[in-house]
């Protein structure tokens, strides 16, 4: 029996794909530019089938790549001649416990579906990647995804309390403390698993916290004629002790892209930058925080501050931000998406450096980012068919990333390393640290069959063992 037959026997005929034409959709993820074709794609219906698939792959010594919705922005979910294990059919919300304020879900549940399901209890799932209408909670766990509201509420790590995981050898373990019984014993293996980008095994079930909906939410849009002023306002708001739920920034290039798209949100196109600030929480005291933000924006040169309190008006302000990557994607056939983090006080200097680098290489950088966290997304739309332009884009990106590292920052704040950021790992970490990361991966996956070749460049992993590919 071939591997495909074995897998068909587990998940059914129609849920195993082997023909190249059918596999094409799985050749890339949310980041255009990388194409890797899996040898086969298999889509289990539930945890039991998924486990049997993992065990069948283990028995054959075959490598595999877990995949959620494929919205990842680092090439993490690409399978290069190996098996793609798609979790998108596993989209059941197994339990919502409004008393303990947790939910138990399958990994393929789409982020926003959980928030919708929790709405009757006035609860929501707080981490809100801009891709939340498509990305899965399993993918969020694997990437330790963030989102605009993570400034106040924390990232995925802070919201996952337990996970049932199939290790690549087919063993099942429950990590963390899904039942809230007290301190989990031993090492924080759940903490280690979060953000492991599919290299430590497959999350079959997640238990996540649900957060009470705020009593009141106010969104402010401040527009600036100088990008420096906008960046300095960010530091001023944080320093003043106001902790907004979200504090996002968009530069003129991004505003232009958004306003000329179907996602137009009414942003001032002549502004050098805008800040989108959301303040939420108890009704008591909220107006004082709103006024403080308004005052700080104006004191730092904001030309205008619009305040939206009604849901429809707020949603409109947010729409442009949430769809900014999509809007940029329309500027040119290809888009490089970056995801660096710098200390907040370095934002102004970094934005100037990015502009200088972009100018020197004649590329147009669009900045849209989680400013409150110092999490930059300097993106460049370009035509990969133009060899000269591509070369300039890549040079500019390399310099931008190096500038972020030199400023004391990091190469990814939420999108993960995947394939795309592998090349930067040794500018950030020592060879010994990278080797230790490989050793940690070997604890979970000694055969290195789960998502091989991602996250840590192979040359830093001692004693690399060969792994078999399927097909």
């Amino acid at each position: 029996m071939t591997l495909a037959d074995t897998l068909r026997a587990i998940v059914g005929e129609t849920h195993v794909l082997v023909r190249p034409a059918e596999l094409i959709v799985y050749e890339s993820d949310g980041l255009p530019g990388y194409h890797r074709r899996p040898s086969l794609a298999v889509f289990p219906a539930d945890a039991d089938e998924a486990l049997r698939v993992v065990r069948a792959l283990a028995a054959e010594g075959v490598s595999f790549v877990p995949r959620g919705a494929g919205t990842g922005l680092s090439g993490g979910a690409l399978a290069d001649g190996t098996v793609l294990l798609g979790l998108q059919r596993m989209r059941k919300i197994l339990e919502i416990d409004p008393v303990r304020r947790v939910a138990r879900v399958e990994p393929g549940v789409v982020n926003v579906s959980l928030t919708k399901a929790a709405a009757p209890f006035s609860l929501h799932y707080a981490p809100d990647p801009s891709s939340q209408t498509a990305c899965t909670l399993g993918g969020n766990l694997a990437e330790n995804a963030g989102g605009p509201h993570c400034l106040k509420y924390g990232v995925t790590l802070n919201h996952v309390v337990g996970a049932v995981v199939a290790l690549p050898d087919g063993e099942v373990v429950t990590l963390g403390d899904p039942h809230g019984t007290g301190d989990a014993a031993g090492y924080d293996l759940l903490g280690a698993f979060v953000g492991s980008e599919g290299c430590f095994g497959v999350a079959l079930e997640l238990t996540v916290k649900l957060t009470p909906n705020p009593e009141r939410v106010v969104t402010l849009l401040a527009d600036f004629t100088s990008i420096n002023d906008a960046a300095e306002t960010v530091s001023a708001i944080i320093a003043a002790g106001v902790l907004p739920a979200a504090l996002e920034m968009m530069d003129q290039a991004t505003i232009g892209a958004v306003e000329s798209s179907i996602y137009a949100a009414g942003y001032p196109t002549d502004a050098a930058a805008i800040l989108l600030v959301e303040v939420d929480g108890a009704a008591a005291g909220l107006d004082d925080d709103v006024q403080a933000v308004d005052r700080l924006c104006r004191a730092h040169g904001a030309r205008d501050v619009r305040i939206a309190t009604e849901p429809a008006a707020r949603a409109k302000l947010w729409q442009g931000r949430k769809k900014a990557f999509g809007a940029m994607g329309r500027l040119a056939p290809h888009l490089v998406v970056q995801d660096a983090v710098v200390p907040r006080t370095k934002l102004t200097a970094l934005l100037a450096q990015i502009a200088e680098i972009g100018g020197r290489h004649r590329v147009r950088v669009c900045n849209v980012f989680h400013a409150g966290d110092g999490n930059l997304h300097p993106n460049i739309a370009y035509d990969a068919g133009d060899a000269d332009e591509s070369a300039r884009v890549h040079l500019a990106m390399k310099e931008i990333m190096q500038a972020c590292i030199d400023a004391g920052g990091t190469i990814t704040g939420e999108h993960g390393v995947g394939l795309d950021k592998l090349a930067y790992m040794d500018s950030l970490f020592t060879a010994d640290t990278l080797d230790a990361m490989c050793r940690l991966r070997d604890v979970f996956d000694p055969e290195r069959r789960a998502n091989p070749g991602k996250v840590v460049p192979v040359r830093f992993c001692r004693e690399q063992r060969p792994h078999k590919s399927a097909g």
Partner: protein
Amino acid sequence: MHHPTSTADLTALIRDAAARAQPLRLVARGTWLNGGAPVSTTAEPVHLDAFSGIIEYEPGDLTITVGAATTLAELEAVTAAHHQWCPLAPWGGDAGSVGATVATATAGPFAHALGLPRDLVLGLEYVDGTGKVLRPGGKVVKNVAGFDLTRLLTGSWGTLGAITRVSLRLRAHPATVETWAVAIDEAHAGDIVRGLRRSATPPDACEALDATLAVQLGLGAQSQLLVRLAGNAAFVAAARADLHSRGAAVAADASLWMRLREAPRAAVARAAMSPGVRALNDRVKRTFDPANILNPGIMG
């Protein structure tokens, strides 16, 4: 007794001990050496107090990097000068070190509202059981580069490495802070705490004290709820009104929080491990401390 003063010293000493299969007992400030299960009596103490002091503090970033043996008191003093603080504030008080708080993942009264040690640590420097100096994580508030050795070390009780540096997230001091004590019926303590935490104006700390502890803290002979309200003036006013509607609240001194943290506490029983999780734990230990020399036995 060993007294390394640099990571190079520490590396040499750990390599030497590994070669001799000599167990080591890591000691930072030595305030809580009976925490955890007993370490092998043949272990040689390694004093890490040389790894202390503020390494980098840019208040505008709301982050700080300190030597691991820096006392919590020093962290508090340095950050307070800039109207900031670190919500680690663990049980046990401020004489202990930042590194030990992270190594033991000891939380305190603010953990529920403001984060556990794993939520507050941004990056580390440590020397593992093979003598390698490792620097996972970083000093920025968001970071997903590489596999998360920082979380692995947090709560590892010194069994996977000797932590030498810690980068932490800080918070700005709230504009208004008030501490209140409310006499409660101990049988309903859980419900009252839950109710408060779920109110529209939740406190940033809320601890039920039994009668013995209440007496120790000079709050009288009845069980008490110690509550800290923090935020802007209007928020705190609303929170205070809500608290008063739940019971007779009496204004209390902020210093009670330190006294509460310093008061003896019953050890928390740890959940049992499944065989699969136990096997992973053993593999982690064998990977990063193959000679089993770092604080052997302390995790039970």
